């Protein structure tokens, strides 16, 4: 089915998430949709799959304008979406998942559906047991199940949202073969959303690049990688003047650390972080960097290896032990994980300090709040609740809560969603901490930010960790390629994750 999007606009408050998108995808082709987080590609896919309505614009299927008002409506029009985290029912059986939502009589006909399931699985060369429970499947298999389900429902357009996050290399290969050799060939139109350059290049017939809500360019095969990277991240890349404040003293030392969760394994990481040093971590969301950062804070317990902080062995100790040794962790989900909704700024400052006696000295608390509010330029008052602050001010508040002295600050996305002014301000505050001898490890999806503020850079790619790259000797292009899984041979010494 041919898909045409005409002049699609969508606003979220002040943010123009889609600004006049025009895109035409011929039947039976694979369209790559490339862009960073927040570039607007997810918004467009949500519009096409019926999750949200566009403010204006038109969707045409095979030349006919359609109105898509819900996901169920979208599938009736033949548009199916495979979500990054497959929208299935983990505690239920595969076959039940497969049938759920499919029309028919009152009673379920397990044997007939089971037969159809097996036929479809055979055709696509998937090996999934219909009687298994979904939570026993890998993410890759759950994707296969969703693809089967959408096909069975009659999808002729398939949208895949970051499908290779959290699946193994073999499963990815399998997925790609299916998309190219089984589906596209039979006339299925595929929209493949990703910020993994490598994947998009392998798969697509055509690539559309998104940046800041706009479709900034389109390329047909053969692709010019450098050009794509440039479109994706913008042109003006300024390394900026970096102050090297790294000292000799080693703050954090990881040796042969392995970390695991249900989806990922990170094996054998070795890293030494010096006092005053800033380490930036690049990588697609879910490549293991979050897990890594949390294990540096004692929030995730490594399954193997040795962690030392300022010479103390903290292997397997709790976050509170780390904290007493001057470690602070600042999560990306500020309101969900770091601040307490309903409590005021003053309350937060009081909570962050060591208790002095039993009773809180309110006046001292308010004084402290006023000082910090002024020092960190927070737009709010001592009695403001944290949820009433803007994102930038919440982040400033979070920084102003950090105790002194600090040895190590671990930050997820220090400036995500913030205005330029806040970004500069927050980094100036962080740099002050470095001058005082604290080291910083931060995750960011903004490569400019990483290059500008880090001394060394780690790149994560599905559980693999690059050796630390000197930030002054790398560039956006190289990082972009590494993030997408390309160019690892040139940097990897050989075995393990010798970061």
């Amino acid at each position: 089915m041919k898909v045409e999007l005409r002049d699609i606009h969508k606003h979220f408050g002040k943010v123009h998430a889609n600004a006049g998108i025009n895109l035409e995808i011929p039947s039976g082709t694979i369209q790559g949709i490339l862009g960073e987080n927040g570039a607007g590609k997810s918004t467009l896919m949500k519009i096409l799959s019926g999750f949200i309505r566009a403010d204006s614009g038109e969707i045409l299927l095979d030349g006919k304008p359609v109105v898509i008002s819900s996901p169920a409506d979208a599938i009736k029009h033949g548009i199916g979406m495979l979500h990054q985290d497959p929208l299935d029912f983990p505690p239920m059986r595969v076959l039940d998942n497969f049938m759920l939502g499919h029309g028919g009589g009152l009673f379920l006909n397990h044997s007939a559906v089971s037969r159809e399931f097996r036929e479809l699985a055979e055709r696509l060369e998937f090996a999934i047991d219909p009687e298994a429970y979904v939570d026993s499947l890998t993410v890759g298999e759950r994707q296969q199940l969703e693809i089967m389900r959408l096909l069975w429902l009659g999808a002729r357009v398939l949208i895949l949202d970051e499908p290779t996050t959290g699946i193994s290399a073999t499963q990815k290969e399998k997925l790609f073969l299916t998309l190219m050799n089984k589906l596209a060939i039979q006339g299925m139109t595929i929209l493949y959303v990703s910020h993994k350059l490598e994947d998009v290049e392998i798969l697509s017939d055509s690539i559309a690049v998104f940046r800041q809500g706009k479709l900034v360019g389109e390329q047909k095969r053969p692709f010019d990688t450098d050009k794509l990277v440039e479109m994706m991240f913008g042109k003006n890349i300024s390394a900026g003047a970096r102050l090297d404040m790294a000292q000799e003293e080693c703050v954090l030392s990881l040796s042969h650390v392995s970390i695991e969760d249900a989806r990922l394994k990170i094996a054998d990481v070795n890293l030494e972080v010096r006092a005053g040093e800033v380490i930036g971590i690049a990588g697609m969301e879910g490549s293991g960097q979050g897990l890594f950062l949390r294990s540096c804070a004692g929030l995730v317990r490594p399954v193997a290896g040795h962690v030392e902080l300022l010479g103390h062995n903290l292997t397997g100790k709790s976050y509170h032990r780390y904290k007493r040794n001057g470690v602070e962790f600042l999560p990306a989900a500020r309101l969900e994980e770091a601040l307490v909704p309903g409590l005021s700024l003053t309350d937060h400052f009081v909570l962050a300090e060591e208790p002095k006696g039993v009773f809180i000295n309110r006046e001292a608390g308010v004084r402290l709040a006023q000082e910090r509010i002024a020092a960190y330029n927070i737009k709010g008052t001592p009695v403001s609740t944290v949820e009433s602050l803007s994102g930038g001010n919440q982040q400033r508040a979070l920084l102003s809560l950090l105790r002194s002295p600090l040895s190590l600050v671990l930050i997820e996305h220090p400036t995500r969603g913030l205005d330029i002014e806040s970004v500069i301000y927050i980094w100036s505050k962080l740099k002050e901490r470095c001058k005082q001898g604290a080291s910083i490890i931060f995750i960011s999806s903004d490569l400019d930010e990483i290059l500008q503020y880090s001394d060394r850079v780690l790149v994560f790619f599905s559980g693999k960790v690059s050796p630390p790259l000197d930030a002054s000797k790398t560039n956006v292009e190289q990082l972009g390629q590494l993030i997408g899984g390309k160019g690892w041979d040139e940097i990897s010494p050989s075995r393990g994750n010798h970061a």
Partner: protein
Amino acid sequence: MLRNNRLVNIGFQLVALLLALGFTTLILWAAGAPPLEAYKNIVLGSLSSFKKFSDVLVSWVPLILVSAGLLVTFAAGLWNIGVEGQITLGAIATTWALRLLQDSSLPPALILFLAILAGMAGGALWAALAGALKTFGGVNEIFGGLGLNFVATALTIYFIFGPWKRPGVASMSGTEPFPDALHLALFPDLRLSPWALVIAIASIIVVYFLLQGTYFGLRLKAVGRNFRAAYLLGIPTWQYMMLSFMICGALAGIAGAMQVTAVYYRLIPSISSGYGYLGLMVAMLVNYQAVWAAPIALFFSALNIGSIQLPIVLKLDSSLAGVLQGMLVLFVLIMEGVRQRLAQRS
């Protein structure tokens, strides 16, 4: 803006009060009772004489003790429904201590003091059980608490009909009453004990300051509102949850001790008298703020005492008090939902 908001809030609560009254009136009318007459009886039954008002205070004592305790668990974001059982265990432990010590040579005042301490410990331990099930076993405190409530009642009955049964024949009327020396002293001619009143007033004041002015209270609120953030802020979260359970249990235990030492002078099967559940409603109605707990609990107690008249005078069941109390909480919750919905829309 803030003043405006406060006015709007009060407006919504007034509407809730009117709806509750309206609905209760409707119920009265449906039951064929004269509504005004019924309300008049409740007011007269609780406020018409000093003696009647002192009876209100007798019921206020356990209610405010329990409500104070529940404010602590609610601050930690916990639904301590097991509070009924915690009152009961307080009463059992008090009875146990009194039975153990009543023949000793210790002065009665000391025996009473120790018995009340035992009640406190009993309630706290029963609460700790619910807390441990929650924090270490992952058992929701509502279901753990409910189960423990039934077990507590069974324990009471076991003691009344088993080891502590009255000489002769065991009965639902309870254990053998304790000698006068082991009663908490009462005001002359009243059923109210000054000691109980002092303990109750002290409890709500302590809880007020605990929640308003101390590091403990603030940290507890942080745990209740955002468990993860509280942990990142360095607060030992599960220890705080356990502590809040035990503080509530201790206060409920004192309430149970008061029921034994100042009201019934023995252990009876329904020693908790539903004060735990009523306390939950008080805490919900004051929107978990300690300042209002005392007057609301007093209002609820007045309804309870005032409605005792109803069966005698109007041949109505005294549960009307519970209907009015419940309707009030229900409509306050509903109006709060309506207010939030309207606020979201504008």
